[in-house]
């Protein structure tokens, strides 16, 4: 069999979600991966979630994706972050057993109907008349499909470095895709190059953990996936926090010139949010105390990841640097830290559905779009897989707006804004984060996913039940009034809620800071039967009510601009008074809506003004269209 509806190239986090999504939608899908033993592999930190990322993982979950489910099954530690702020920015983070995680994903892929798996290195895309036809594998065999999703991670002309030593590789011990990258360039795509790195892995037995601050997980009921019941994970592995000192910085400074980016043998642009030890010393020369984490990579291993200790100097020197830290005097490095640089395809060449503007039927997701992070890759993979399936079926694309989801924010950023470093999602990217919370991703997205066939019916039923219960409680609390009689006042005092002086609706009580869902249950047995997530939803919406209303009206205005469509045949050379840069950008990106135009890097407000005037004039003078 060599003919499929869809081919997904690459079995990382993007490829897994893409192929699972398209096969779930009934499209026969082929997943080609370089190494079948590393499906869903986490070559860097085996952690899922964190601020912004957790929202993405929950949204993937709400749309039927695998990441959250697989995380719940393989995690070694789970925490709810940002609880010192309000619930809108609470974010789950889990560490996983990286082997179990990969195995779990492999099993999901193997068991998925309509999904076929092949090991092989894709050497070439088969393109005819600017349309994708299939792919060719290094051994010469060909596979044909109507849509191809490229999720090739750091493999495009990937090269890894430890100081002056380097080799071509997609990551440690795996070959890169050289010819594929060259062909993509020949097809006319604009490409650039980023770097990223990873930390040494050290032997836990050689670390004196008593010298570090222990950082355990949370032992309260939690779950990443909406489809699992929250539970307390008893069997969690703690992390450890350590700090560098003057000596560490001094030793690092000695070897700065051995870092390949300083020597100029590799590209310098990497994620600023993950600076290497060398970069920390260069950028913050006065600081000596840098925090790092020790995180065990799985249940059945002694290897520890060192979050914050990215390096690119030679092995011996890495060791010398580490040994300056108390507790690491006898440390042994099992795998040295290394850096990698790789090609990415400038993502403004994509349409909002992740299909390239240049080659019809070719979709790109994950690191080849210049992003960093498993969560970001998985989110793009899911959307690309969904849209490839919709394309094959001749259906309308599935586009999430910035006001719909963090996934929409990420897509919109990638397609409109210039990338200055690998893209990582964080809450600060999101304008509507009081509405786009991780706790309500299912309520926001599951129905939409069900409508396009990417979410199973039982999940839809579960969300409908949650909606039903939410409405039931809302009606209850809108009618239920508390009178300031002795019985009620005693009860309030007992559960630690300040007095009331006049009758008050429970709905209004919940707006108060000192009245929570747990107190509601203690106040009145009626509420005991409702699941926590139902009550939490109501509480959050009530506590934020004023601000949510403001955000909703901002969304209304935003959507107006989004729905102000720009005709596809617009000729920007006939729009008067545009700035030179603005005209160029509009010509390359060709935004679909006025709203999108507002967010394109290099577009000035005045350009938007001119465009509005032009479109209004055109609309007025052409009553037929």
């Amino acid at each position: 069999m060599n003919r499929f509806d869809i081919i997904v190239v690459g079995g990382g986090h993007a490829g897994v979600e893409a192929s699972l999504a398209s096969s779930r939608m009934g499209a026969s899908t082929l997943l080609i991966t370089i190494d079948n033993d590393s499906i869903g592999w986490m070559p860097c930190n085996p952690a899922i979630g964190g601020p912004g990322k957790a929202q993405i993982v929950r949204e993937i979950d709400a749309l039927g994706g695998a990441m959250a489910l697989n995380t719940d099954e393989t995690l070694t530690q789970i925490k709810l972050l940002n609880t010192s702020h309000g619930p809108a920015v609470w974010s789950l983070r889990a560490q996983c057993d990286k082997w179990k995680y990969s195995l779990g994903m492999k099993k999901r892929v193997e068991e998925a109907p309509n999904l076929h798996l092949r090991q092989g290195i894709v050497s070439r895309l088969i393109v005819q008349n600017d349309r994708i036809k299939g792919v060719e594998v290094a051994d010469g065999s060909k596979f044909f499909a109507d849509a191809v999703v490229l999720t090739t991670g750091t493999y495009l002309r990937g090269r890894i470095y430890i100081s002056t030593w380097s080799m071509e590789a997609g990551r440690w011990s795996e070959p890169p895709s050289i010819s594929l990258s060259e062909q993509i360039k020949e097809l006319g795509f604009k490409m650039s190059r980023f770097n990223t790195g990873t930390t040494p892995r050290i032997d836990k037995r050689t670390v004196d953990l008593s010298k570090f601050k222990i950082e355990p997980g949370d032992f309260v009921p939690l779950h990443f996936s909406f489809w699992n019941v929250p539970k307390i994970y008893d069997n969690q592995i703690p992390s450890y926090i350590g700090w560098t000192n003057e000596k560490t910085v001094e030793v690092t400074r000695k070897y700065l010139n051995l870092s390949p980016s300083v020597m100029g043998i590799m590209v310098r642009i990497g994620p600023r949010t993950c600076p290497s030890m060398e970069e920390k010393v260069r950028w913050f020369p006065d600081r000596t105390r840098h925090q790092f984490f020790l995180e065990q990579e799985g249940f059945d291993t002694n290897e520890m990841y060192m979050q914050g200790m990215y390096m690119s100097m030679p092995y011996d020197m890495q060791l010398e640097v580490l040994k300056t830290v108390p507790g690491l005097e006898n440390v042994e490095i099992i795998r040295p830290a290394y850096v990698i640089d790789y090609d990415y395809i400038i993502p403004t060449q994509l349409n909002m559905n992740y299909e390239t503007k240049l080659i019809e039927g070719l979709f790109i997701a994950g690191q080849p779009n210049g992003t960093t992070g498993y969560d970001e890759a998985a989110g793009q993979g899911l959307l690309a897989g969904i849209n490839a399936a919709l394309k094959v079926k001749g259906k309308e694309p599935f586009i999430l707006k910035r006001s719909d989801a963090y996934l929409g924010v990420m897509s919109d950023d990638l397609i409109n804004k210039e990338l200055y470093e690998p893209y990582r999602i964080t809450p600060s990217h999101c304008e509507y984060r009081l509405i786009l919370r991780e706790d309500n991703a299912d309520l926001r997205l599951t129905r939409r996913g069900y409508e396009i066939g990417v979410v199973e019916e039982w999940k839809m039923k579960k969300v409908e039940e949650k909606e039903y219960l939410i409405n039931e409680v809302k009606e209850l609390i809108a009618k239920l009034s508390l009178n300031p009689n002795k019985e009620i006042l005693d009860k309030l005092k007992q559960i630690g809620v300040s007095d009331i002086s006049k009758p008050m609706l429970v709905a209004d009580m919940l707006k108060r800071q000192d009245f929570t869902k747990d107190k509601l249950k203690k106040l009145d047995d009626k509420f005991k039967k409702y699941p926590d997530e139902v009550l939490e939803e109501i509480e959050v919406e009530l506590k934020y009510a004023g601000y949510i209303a403001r955000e909703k009206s901002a969304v209304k205005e935003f959507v107006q601009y989004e729905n102000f469509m720009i005709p596809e045949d617009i000729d920007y050379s006939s729009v008067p008074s545009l700035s030179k840069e603005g005209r160029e950008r509009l010509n390359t990106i060709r935004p679909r809506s006025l709203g999108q135009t507002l967010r394109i890097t290099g577009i000035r407000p005045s350009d938007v003004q001119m465009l509005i005037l032009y479109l209004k004039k055109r609309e007025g003078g052409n009553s037929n269209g």
Partner: protein
Amino acid sequence: MSDTIAAISTPRGFGGIGIIRISGNDALRIAQSILSVKISEPNTVYTGYVFDPETSDKIDTCIVLFFKAPHSYTGEDVVELQMHGGIKNLDLILGFILAKGVRLAEKGEFTKRAFINGKMDLLEAASVIELIEAKTDKALKLASKKLFGIFSEKIINFKKKVLSLLSHIEGVIDFPFDVKLMTSEEITKLIKELIEETQKYLSSYKTGKMIENGARVVIAGKPNVGKSTLLNVLLKFDRAIVSEIPGTTRDTVEEVIDFFGVPVRLIDTAGLLETGDVIELLGAERTVRAIEESDLVLFVFDASETLSLEDQRLAELTESKERIIVVNKTDLPVELDIVKLKEIFKNDKIMEISALKRQGVEELENKILEHILPSDFESAFVTTEREKEIFENILSHLNGSLALGGSGNDELIAEELRDIISELGSLTGEEVGEDVLQTIFSRFCIGK
């Protein structure tokens, strides 16, 4: 590419010099087609003559200036033709240019293009019109400051402060492991500083508006206390009809004067005398309205008469306004109970003058100036209603953040600060609603 526009940039009339400005890609080519001299170098003065492209007749001598994009007012190629300033002459030559396919510039379009091409921000662009319309030297000074970006700089600094607080809060939310949150006291302190600064800007609006639009100073008082005489003294010429008969000034009399650099609209009111006279009643009604709209009331009393019921009514009417009590006719024997007057108006300054004899007038003028022009007037740059509204919105967001301080809802403080950034953006034009640009540039006249 943007089309080429042209307009007569000097006022219509018979002037010594008239200038036609052409801007756009075709500016040089078109200008060249009616000029005798070859223009090759930018920023060089050429002299020659303009000829009729149809008949080749010489029309006028001409000085030509050529500015090459982006080094011009609009940021495009600009040619300025300086000729003799007659209406016929300039219209004829502009006609030649328009016949070549150049469009007549809309109101303010040259400045609009300068804004579009990034030559100035919105505050600076708006100041161009303020500069042109400046009625007095102080108004001119303010407009110049805006034009040279001094206020834009203040806004940029203010924005920097908001951004630094915002990015700190966002940083803590984005990277909880790496960034440590300031204490709520530290955040509150920063917000309070921003509130103080905003209030300063807002309070400068009154001054700014007065300098830009003029202060309204109303002269009120019962009939025949010498209001019109006072008006004439302040105007330094006779304008209102002055007579001995009460109620002679039947309407409000208005005059705009340059009052030590501030445009002042002086309004003389009819008395509130209750007669059957329809015209008199109408005048009284206008008096009430004039007082309501005023920035300062000069409440005039006749030193030679006792206090009356009407004085009392006027006192009530002007109670909420800034006012100066003027005791006039001090050259006559004093009948007025000054002690009682001081008691009634204990919060107001009382000035004794004789308008007729020009006594105490200079002191009064200084007092008026103090009221309409606080000493920090040079920092006043909130001059328009739009700018005032923006700062009011900013203040309300800051107060919102202050109310949240310490509640652990930093994400909500961030919401408020984000709204402030977008308000500031609309002030400088980085973020502009559909209507705002149109409103601003429609105030310009053609050729600017």
